[in-house]
């Protein structure tokens, strides 16, 4: 059921009730009406709160603070910076859960819900932002493919010219894992194997 259907049902019941209100009697009807009224009052209070928080932007702010993105990216430092930026005030809480509550309260007092939402959205966007493939990465990837096309002797000569640091950077950029203990010889063998594989696997214009 959706809320439009609930509204239609309430309308329908309300219409019938008002038509027959003067004729209704008996304990079971009275009891049932009392239960309905209690639940309706609770529902109306919730609905009022919901509408108000939606209107003020607080709902989206709270949704963001509880979101999976917040779980990964939200820190007390971020809330502290946000509160200072938006209201000029200092965040007093020292644990994240309390800090979230305090943040919402202070933002509510300042009436800056929309700005706070934007601040958090920008901060979350920033924290997942990855630089586009830089020139450095692109050139190391091209070099990797170039190495994959070399004959064994040419490859060995190229590797000899490289320091271990350069070879590590080349391997790292092209997805090859190694440890501090991996020797230059071992790393060169890994680069050779995976560079040749890349040449085979990537599309070659015909």
């Amino acid at each position, binding site marked *: 059921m959706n809320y439009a259907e609930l509204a239609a049902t309430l309308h329908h019941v309300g219409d019938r009730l008002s038509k027959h209100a003067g004729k209704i009697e008996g304990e079971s009807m009275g009891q049932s009406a009392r239960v309905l009224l209690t639940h309706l009052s609770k529902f109306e209070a919730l609905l009022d709160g919901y509408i108000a928080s939606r209107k003020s932007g607080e709902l*989206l702010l709270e949704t963001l603070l509880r979101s999976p993105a917040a779980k990964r990216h939200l820190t007390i430092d971020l809330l502290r910076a946000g509160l200072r930026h938006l209201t000029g005030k200092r965040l007093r809480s020292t644990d994240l859960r309390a800090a979230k509550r305090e943040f919402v309260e202070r933002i509510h007092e300042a009436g800056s819900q929309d700005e706070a939402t934007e601040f958090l959205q920008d901060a979350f966007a920033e924290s997942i932002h990855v630089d586009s493939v830089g020139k450095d990465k692109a050139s190391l990837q091209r070099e990797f493919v170039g190495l994959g096309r070399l004959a064994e002797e040419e490859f060995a000569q190229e590797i000899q010219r490289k320091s271990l640091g350069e070879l590590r950077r080349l391997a790292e950029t092209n997805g090859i*894992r190694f440890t501090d203990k991996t020797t230059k010889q071992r790393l060169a063998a890994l680069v050779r194997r995976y560079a040749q594989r890349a040449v085979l696997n990537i599309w070659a214009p015909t």
Partner: protein
Amino acid sequence: MSSKVLAFINFKGGVGKTATVVNIGATLAKLHEKKVLIVDIDPQSNSSVWLMRPDRWREHVTGGRKSTFQIYDDALHGKNRFNFEEALIKGVVTWTGFTDLPRLHLLPAAVELLRIEDRIHELRDSAVYRVLDAALGAYFKEYDYVLLDCPPNLYSTTRGAIFSADSCVVPYVPDYLSLSGFQVLAEEILAMREKFAPHLPARRKPNIGAVVVSHYRQSGNVYRLAVNELELSIAQLQRTGLLSRQTAILEPYIRHCVRVAESTNEHLPVILYAPGSIGAQDYCDLAQGFLNHFENKK
């Protein structure tokens, strides 16, 4: 409203097309207050039954009338029985029995699509491509994002979706089978660009806008190397003009998460079913990356 229509395509199955459509759509609607329409044109109806309980879905699409099947059936029989408002599902029903995500709308598919898929080819070439656009183009304007969930093939319905879309998104599993398919896909899209050109406005050219990597595992070398080969391949395809410079691999990569699989049984997007799971977190970040890319925010 300036809408963005995106076709999620890959003729390889099991690459996470539906998971990407459903979960990005839900996250855009919930956390970014975007109005999103998911159009299911896959006869398997996976995004429909992910977002609807099977009994409700079956009841809704009985006979195919209130589903995307009707759009194609109308085109085949020269009729006009499809009614967008009647077919539309607004929001998803949670365990409370009430709807959530009111900004997420779904145009469900019906398995009847299977029965007519081969007959759709009988239509004239340009008519085939226009079917979806002609039936839904006017409604697309009411949404921020329209996500077209395509079947795992490049037959007429998928081509029609590519024709209707501003851009394509390719869900991708990091292995060689996906990589070889991706390269063929890029060539096919280029061929479609030439074929569609006389029928499309100049600004709308079929293209691969983004690649989404799913089923990723961080341990070991395997997936890092496979993604590197995808990057190398994209760079190569860009150099040869098969892909535009704007084609990007969106990050983060979606890691394997059992809660996402489980959420299909609950008929909810993972952001509602298990908001604390890594799957929900990955899709949240991916939706942000998606906005950054398609709205040129960063």
